[in-house]
């Protein structure tokens, strides 16, 4: 996929998201996550696709730490400022947890991300390059867990809704066409 196609697809998806956005105002924790990911995404888009010769040398070792510590900082600061728990946005508000449970989940995630960011730097400086690469990819398992969680509890209901809608439309069209002939 060419950079232009990739960007175009992303822009179209974002346009759809804008058109279909919920009309109620997002909470502050949602805004701060949006801004943070917007910035990280813009960085990724710029240096990954367009800027030459690419990112500054040695920055690759810092990238996971930047992400983890950014997330950890948001998760720690947002509740302190009374902006709610950002982990609700990441996991989704589909789970009926109490505020206390959300707080501990938020603290737990912030701790995990802080530790992961620190361990990344430690491994990058002390271990070999291959060991660092291995560590980096093993950390992605956390991403996989989150995706699977989301897939099960959020994407499947949406898919069910969409499928039922498409099926009903298709059967209605079939009935209509059958009545014509």
């Amino acid at each position, binding site marked *: 996929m060419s950079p232009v196609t990739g960007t175009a697809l992303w822009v179209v998806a974002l346009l759809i998201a804008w058109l279909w956005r919920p009309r109620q105002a997002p909470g502050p924790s949602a805004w701060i996550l949006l801004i943070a*990911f917007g910035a990280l*995404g813009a960085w990724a888009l710029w240096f*990954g696709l367009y800027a030459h010769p690419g990112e500054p040398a040695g920055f690759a070792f810092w990238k996971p730490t930047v*992400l983890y510590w950014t997330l950890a900082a948001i998760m720690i600061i947002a509740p302190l400022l009374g902006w709610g728990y950002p982990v609700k946005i990441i996991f989704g508000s589909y789970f009926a947890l109490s505020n206390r449970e959300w707080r501990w989940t938020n603290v737990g995630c912030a701790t995990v991300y802080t530790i992961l960011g620190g361990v990344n730097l430690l491994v990058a400086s002390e271990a070999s390059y291959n060991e660092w690469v291995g560590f*980096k990819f093993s950390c992605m398992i956390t991403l996989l867990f*989150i995706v699977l969680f989301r897939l099960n509890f959020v994407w499947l209901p949406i898919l069910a809704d969409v499928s039922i809608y498409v099926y009903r439309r298709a059967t209605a069209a079939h009935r209509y066409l059958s009545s014509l002939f």
Partner: protein
Amino acid sequence: MPAVERKPENIVELIWPGQRSELVTLDATGKSGGAGEIFSIDSKPGFVAKIYHATTSQAHLDQYRRKIQWMVENKPELPQVPAEYQGIVQLAWPEALILRQSRFVGFAMQKIAFDRTLELDYLLNRRQAAQEGFDADYGKLVTVAFNLASIINCLHDERIAIVDLKPMNVKVYKAALYVSILDCDGFHIATDEFRSHAPQVTPEYLAPEFQDKAVAHPEAQDSFALATIIFRLLNYGIHPFTGVASDHNNYPPELAGRIKHGLYPYGKLAHKSVRKVPASVHEAFPDHLRELFDRAFASTGYSRPSAHEWVAALGIYASKHSGQMSPCSKGHLRFSSRPCPTCMRDELIHGAEVRRRSFLARVQTAPARTLKYVKKTLRQTHSSPFQAALAQAQLTLVQLAPPAPISTRNAIALEILWISGLLITYWWTR
């Protein structure tokens, strides 16, 4: 009547038994077979002529001449036809030789009224028979089978065998139920004074011991073909070697192969590797007939029931006075004290149709029902207490919130943002 052009080659000489000769003129009928063409005879409306094709070799013509000569002089005794049935021709037997310019070219035989008859093939399919004006019931079918067996029995008594016996070569009189056998010049004759072989066979009606071989015992071959025709007549056209194999790898695709391997699934003892066709009604046949079928299809040639045995077995059912056929509660004729095959067939076909429709309906509604079930499970809104308990049992670890008060479009918009965040996260950690 318009004058018909008389070509010299159409003027032929008929040689009747006792060498009485007569000059006649032939008119083409447009009907033609593998061996010859059929002509009408102008002064003999009750007869037709079969003239062998011009391509027939002289050697074959000589063989035919000897055979026809013998046949003209030795017409077999056939079952008596009651006086009320006029013009029934039970065999298209040669009645006179035909010579053209003193050269043998064919023979004359009695004309079979095609408007009064239909091919026996049509009786194997009730709908086809009805279209031909024949309302088939078990009484009529048994009578037809009995009449066919009677003719074959008479032929066997004279040491004559048909060999290539198949429904296409048999005509049935719609009202009288007598049968007429065609292509008599292909019969096998083995009398003391004359012998003639019959090389023509049809694999679907050929006994297992003669598959891929010459027919060494023509009467045994006739017995097999007769049993096959009777089975098909009584079982809605199902061939006795049509079945459902449990092991498809070793199941021959063609009937001849199944006959050769004895894959007969309708016996009183079930076959190990082949099952009956679901629409078969053979279980409604009397035990005596089933035993005859078993002997015909599941045994070797010597124990196969002869035409004489079939005559004896079918005679009691073909006779109206024997009381061996009686109407069922719906008025169909059936073998007394046996289930009604017609009702059985209707039930099987109707049941199959109901099951087919039900299956199709379930297949068509399956996607919607599955999605509905998944949705109810995810939202925990099952109306059935059992399903609700099942769904809750699967999700005891995580308590879900009530359905979010957002539309599907809003949810999709949020998920696009979420996936974008995921991609960014992936890019930053990769």
